[in-house]
């Protein structure tokens, strides 16, 4: 996902052309320690999310022991307020919290990315309309807007995903539109348009490959943002609802333990922080590599 963006593939003649995968691998080996940490974190989280049912000793919502049991051999991280195994719920949280955040981000990209592309290609009334709508939506702080919409539509996972995806799509719209506009004015795009290429072709073959790098970086940043937002909403009791194991609500459910000096309740919060940090490190490195400019914002 990274190597081909930095330089045109192998300008030297005579050197055997390496495969894309090898190139990516070589780049990763050269990456700074922070980026390696990021990749490792993402791989581990992905692994846990996929294999959660195999890795965990108990079922997600199964009550297996006394309430608030301490760390021990049977329950490695103790149990929560209802007697469910903390470790099990922590591992399932990787699947639920990260999974929902990921779906939301993808949805936000589909909405924001497509409207952004259309707005850039048809720079007429559609662009005007979409841009003004986005201006207004962005004038309201996101969390506040999300809170309001959740009051109106109620709190369920599909609503949560749609509300947050829509709100985040506004920012993606802006980015996609801005970077696509740079491509739309270029000659080869004009040529493709004069050839009479269809809209779909214009988007997929002419614009998308050229705006992939900024969009990938944006995807990482947006994911962090969505992830933190969902965690915050769940923590407020308005996001992912019990009994689903979710890191935000787990912190809330077990918060009382903090007053006894127990760090168990903040473990899910730490899990959130490590993933966001990992993704941020990776994005930082990626931006550094893909764009010549070092410190733009």
């Amino acid at each position, binding site marked *: 996902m990274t190597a081909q963006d930095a330089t045109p593939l192998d300008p030297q003649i005579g050197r055997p052309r390496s495969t894309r995968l090898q190139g990516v691998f070589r780049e990763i080996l050269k990456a700074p320690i922070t980026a390696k940490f990021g990749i490792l974190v993402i791989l581990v989280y992905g692994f846990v999310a996929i294999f959660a049912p195999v890795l965990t000793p108990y079922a997600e919502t199964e009550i297996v022991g006394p309430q608030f049991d301490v760390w021990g051999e049977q329950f490695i991280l103790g149990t929560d307020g209802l007697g469910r195994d903390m470790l099990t719920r922590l591992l399932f949280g990787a699947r639920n919290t990260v999974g929902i955040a990921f779906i939301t981000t993808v949805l936000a990209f589909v909405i924001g990315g497509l409207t952004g592309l259309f707005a850039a290609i048809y720079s007429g009334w559609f662009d005007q309309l979409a841009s003004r709508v986005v201006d207004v939506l962005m*004038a309201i702080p996101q969390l506040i807007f999300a*809170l309001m919409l959740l009051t109106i539509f109620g709190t369920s996972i599909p609503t949560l995903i749609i509300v947050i995806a829509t709100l985040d799509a506004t920012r993606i719209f802006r980015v996609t539109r801005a970077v696509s506009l740079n491509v739309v004015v270029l000659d080869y795009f004009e040529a493709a348009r004069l050839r009479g290429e269809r809209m779909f072709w214009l988007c997929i073959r002419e614009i998308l490959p050229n705006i992939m790098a900024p969009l990938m970086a944006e995807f990482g940043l947006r994911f962090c943002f969505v992830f933190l937002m969902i965690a915050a909403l769940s923590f407020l009791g308005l996001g992912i609802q019990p009994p689903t194991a979710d890191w935000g609500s787990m912190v809330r459910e077990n918060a009382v333990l903090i007053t006894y000096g127990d760090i168990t309740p903040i473990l899910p*919060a730490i899990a959130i922080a490590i993933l966001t*940090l990992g993704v941020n*490190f990776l994005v930082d490195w990626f931006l550094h590599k893909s764009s010549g400019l070092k*410190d733009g914002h």
Partner: protein
Amino acid sequence: MVLQRFGLGLLTLFVVSIIIFIGVEFLPGDIAEALLGQGASPENVAALRHELGLDRPAHIRYIDWWAGVMEGDLGTSLANRRDIAGLITMRLSNTLFLALTAAAISVPLALILGVLAALYRNSIYDRSVNVVTLGAVSAPEFLTAYVLILYFSVKLGWFPSLSNIDANTSFIDKLHQVTLPAVTLMAVILAYMMRMVRASIINLLASAYIEMAHLKGMPKLRVIVKHALPNAWAPIANIIAISLAYLVVGVVVVEVVFIYPGLGQLMVDSVSNRDIPVVQACAMIFAGTYILLNLTADIVSICTNPRLLHPK
């Protein structure tokens, strides 16, 4: 230019108020039904709708609502039938106190540390600042909050973990109570502001006229004060406004953690109770503050930039 921007701000506020107001119209069922529950007879529902004024057309209610807002009457809460304005005033001042305390410390600190990071870029200091601030931005607010509670409240017992503030709390007491929530808020916006200040100063220092000034042999400090700073005001004002706007949002989570009697906590409670008028009022205040801050930032950028102030 300034006036035009000001008008645009007002227009945004107006549109936002319509959105917030229209939200209620999309409610499945309506407030009266929700209030009385499913077993209510149609007559009761109709009576309550009349009492709440829901039987009038939406645009008239909207105008009435604004008229009320202008007179300081925000309507009544559905949950406890209390006057919203009374409910909010005290909480608003608490929230402002918390946010201003956090801002008063973090803004100057972020400016100084950010400029230093930009001046000594790629040094050990700069790199560690980069990693630490990225860490602070990545952590959810409640993590910071609970870690602070764990150490400073439970282990050391220096500060209370819950904020107990009412009208009689003295200023010193308030400051003591507000310390942990304010530090939590600061951690996030400080990191964010520092990163942005650093980035914009570095952008600026790369410009040709700064290089020219250096080549003229101007002392470093003079270059920054005379050449860089006047051009930096606009981005810096923007950064501060964005961070303060962020504060508006961050305050919600922090208030819930510390059970701080502020506007954010009220809003979250009202969302759980689906107490629409209170949510509307809170959303309006938050959104208004946010728009006002962005407006201020834009006006500062215009006023500090002669090219924008005196367009040809």
